[in-house]
């Protein structure tokens, strides 16, 4: 089957005197089978830029995005309508998406009307109620409320209900839970898993919070300064990361278990310098200045993202960009 989404050699350079290589030759795919792919990385690593390109909100400097086999930049009006219906965005603060004078009911009705989803009033009502229940909201509690009368968690789930009405094939969610409390986060993530398992909806989930990515399972892509360092099955990567950056990242998750505290004191470790790709150039491993295992060759050329040459059973399930595994 055709991949749902293919991202090919994506590059985004923001101009000006100090060029920012926000996305630097990134390729990955989301298969046709319903999947959750988490895109993780620190602030500024290029996550939102990739999301904006995929959503067609930003024209990349180079590279292309294929959705269901077609280049999203090339396609015509009919195709555009299909794309707008099948690929849905969920952002960090859904507040901005809502018109504050509209009640929740209106927010949902507008979608039903715009996309001609229901033939009658009764059908529209039934659809709204089903959508709300699919995201664990009680229709009688939210339909009559304005966005500011809902909690952050409720607003985010209302956003998912809206998305659900359109039955997309792909949700692109950029930091959707970073404003929601831990106690309610789980229910939001459970809904994405239900969407995948019961409704065949895939999600590209963007987060800097690795514990959320771990909870979601599926696949993970670890970005660093606009490049993919490691990718593979979330469980495999999280349990035994290979790339030194992924190792640092994953060992730094504050595990919510006081009996499993960080063992190594990083407070004397070298700090990352700012100004991505400024003086040292980018024809190298970008992690070289912080890597405890750096070698001479790491400064000479960019390591390629490929299956690691090691004997581990899981090596086929992932790719790593590091000379240690070439």
């Amino acid at each position, binding site marked *: 089957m055709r991949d749902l989404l293919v991202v090919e050699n994506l590059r985004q350079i923001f101009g000006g005197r100090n060029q920012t290589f926000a996305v630097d030759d990134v390729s990955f795919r989301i298969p046709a089978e319903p999947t959750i792919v988490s895109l993780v990385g620190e602030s500024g690593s290029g996550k939102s830029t990739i999301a904006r390109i995929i959503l067609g909100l930003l024209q990349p400097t180079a590279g292309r995005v294929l959705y269901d086999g077609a280049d999203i930049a090339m396609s015509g009006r009919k195709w555009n309508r299909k794309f707008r219906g099948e690929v849905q965005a969920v952002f960090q603060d859904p507040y901005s998406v809502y018109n504050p004078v509209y009640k929740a009911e209106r927010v949902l009705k507008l979608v039903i009307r715009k996309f001609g989803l229901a033939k009658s009033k009764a059908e529209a009502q039934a659809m709204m109620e089903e959508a709300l229940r699919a995201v664990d909201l009680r229709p009688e509690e939210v339909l009559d409320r304005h966005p500011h009368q809902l909690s952050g968690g409720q607003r985010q789930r209302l956003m998912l209900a809206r998305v659900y009405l359109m039955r997309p094939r792909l949700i692109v969610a950029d930091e959707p839970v970073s404003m929601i409390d831990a106690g309610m986060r789980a229910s939001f993530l459970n809904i994405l898993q239900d969407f995948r398992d019961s409704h065949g909806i895939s999600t590209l989930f963007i987060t*800097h919070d690795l514990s959320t990515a771990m909870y979601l399972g599926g696949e993970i892509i670890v970005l660093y300064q606009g490049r993919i360092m490691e990718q593979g099955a979330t469980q495999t990567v999280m349990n035994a990361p290979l790339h030194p950056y992924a190792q640092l990242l994953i060992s730094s998750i504050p595990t919510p278990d006081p009996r499993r505290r960080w063992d190594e004191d990083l*407070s004397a470790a070298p700090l990352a310098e700012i100004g991505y790709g400024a003086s040292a150039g980018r024809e190298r491993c970008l992690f070289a200045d912080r890597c405890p295992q750096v070698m001479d060759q790491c400064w000479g050329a960019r390591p390629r993202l490929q299956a690691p040459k090691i004997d581990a059973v899981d090596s086929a399930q992932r790719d790593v960009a590091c000379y240690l595994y070439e």
Partner: protein
Amino acid sequence: MPALLEIRGLSAGLQGRRSVTQVVSNVDLDVRSGEILGVVGESGCGKSTLATAIMRLLVPPQVLQSGSMTLRLNKGSSYDLVKLSESELRELRWRHLSYIPQGSMNSLNPVLRVERQMTDTLIQHGLSDKEARSRAIAALELVNLEPKILYSYPHELSGGMRQRVIIAAAVSMRPALIVADELTTALDVVTQRQILQELIGIRDELGATIILITHDMGVVAQIADRVAVMYAGKIAELGTVNGIFETPLHPYSQGLIGSIPRESGQRVEGLLGEAPSPWNYPTGCRFHPRCPKVFAHCRAQTPALQVQASDRWAACHLYDAEVAADA
């Protein structure tokens, strides 16, 4: 361990046109000398209000309603922060207390070099330029920054570096008590880990006491000695970090800790319902509308924070022998 700060019956609220809406209610809390006390709770439960009340930095419409806060410094001097005048407070804050507000990473003045921002207050308080500079450099060292950063402007620094500058400025007078509100919330995990580990170093080096406010259970698990769990303006439970994570007593703490996934792929259910805001705090136990163990008594009577075991306090009728027997 003796208490550095003894908070009793502290209440603070928001002054409305006719009445005060209480946000933080009747908080009893001992902050022990040299500890890192984590204060956790959902957004809006009153953590920042408590922190600002402790520092006596509430600004209208916020008002301090009642209570006492006894600060005992090692020279045997003791003060009730609630009773001090503004000028006494200023003096005490400058010498012994330090507050790092939520979001302070973005509060550096963009047009001033780090040096000015770190030394101006020191100089205003009578230190010579040279003294101020050497204090600033010593403080920067505590957070792993080189002296050359003094010549930088804030926009030249990464978020983690700006947060370190803020911390350094806050500890340059070697305070006895540091109250840090959401210190690492906006940072990536690696930087967060480094800064939290630096904070432990500061505690050890200065012998300071730290109140660390966060909504992240992982952060408290990693660095706190004890944990206070807040719900709707009250302390629901207080205990050692191991105790709270292993055997949470209060149903709210149980819900919070139960909603943490332990294994990849394991599914957990979140807490049901939403936290109330100060304008609609429920009667009786404020957690009762969401509590899976609620019984009739909970709706009418407010449970008091009571000692339940060694080093453990909880405010829940389940542990109130007489009431629970009635149920």
